[in-house]
């Protein structure tokens, strides 16, 4: 079944306390190669049938109205994926 993936990330200028906490934990398990971690969200919107332009447009609207808050987050991806390619 095709799905639409929406990725949402905290805006670059906003401190991401969750990412910071994760970055602090990585060296504790011996992983010292990372200077920063930022944590975002991935949404998968399933569709019955084909993904039409209209449905894709609805996904874009969902991404900017409900799935993200433009004050603190950016939508970084709205894309159709097929099973197996994700």
């Amino acid at each position, binding site marked *: 079944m095709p799905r639409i993936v929406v990725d949402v990330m*905290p805006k670059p200028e*906003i*401190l991401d*306390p*969750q990412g910071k*906490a994760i970055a602090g934990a990585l060296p504790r398990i011996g992983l010292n190669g990372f200077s920063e971690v930022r944590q975002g969200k991935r949404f998968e919107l399933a569709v019955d049938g084909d993904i039409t332009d209209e449905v894709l447009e609805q996904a874009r609207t969902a991404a900017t109205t*409900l*799935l993200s*808050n433009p*004050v*603190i987050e950016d939508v970084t991806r709205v894309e159709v994926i097929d099973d197996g390619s994700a």
Partner: protein
Amino acid sequence: MAPLEGDAAGARIGVVTFPGTLDDRDAARAVRLAGATPVNLWHGDGSLQDVDAVVLPGGFSYGDYLRAGAISRFAPLMGKVTAAAEAPGSPLPVLGICNGFQVLTEAHLLPGSMVKNENLHFMCRDQKLTVENASTSWTNQFTAGEQIVIPLKNQDGQFIADEHTLDQLEGDGRVVFRYAESNPNGSRRSIAGISNAAGNVVGLMPHPEHAVEPGFGPDSSGADRRFGDTPLASGTDGLSLFTSVLNTLLVA
């Protein structure tokens, strides 16, 4: 402060319950102690039942899923609240407390947003605030510069907005409450509460409804020095928000 006399008892203040709201009972109690009649409103209803003002109480509506307040903001009742709050002429006074404040920012009735506390901890403490604006519908029974202590309890309490918005809020006198002495959660410019341009919509993270009755609010009787030399009130500092809106309604 004594509850207002006269017509105040006729004032009907709606308290909205969302799935996961925690503090609706306390908010209704605060309304009653202030001298008005609380009206329970359900998020799924389509009518405001002709209330004179609305309180969006604290809690974790929809488990804070997605973002705090993000799903509640689209509740049927919120459409009515938003329209009434922005109505020309006599806009509906609306107070958002904690999760209610988050709902108001998600609904774009107030600018900015809340993210996780800077230190990532859930905080629960008695918090000293400075009342910066004593002319809104919900703060006219305070005096500007007055310091109060009410509880603060949240996980996503860090108020953020871009610099332009912050400058505008400051310039227009729309910073209503500011954290005093120390900034508990990293909020920009120590902002604890703000209002819309008209002053009828106010949101704040701390909880005035938990400080409305002697013996149950922050009350150290002066022996506790956590708050420095400011003499603490009797634990009822939050009541003035609720008597303020009654004053607003009586004057209107």
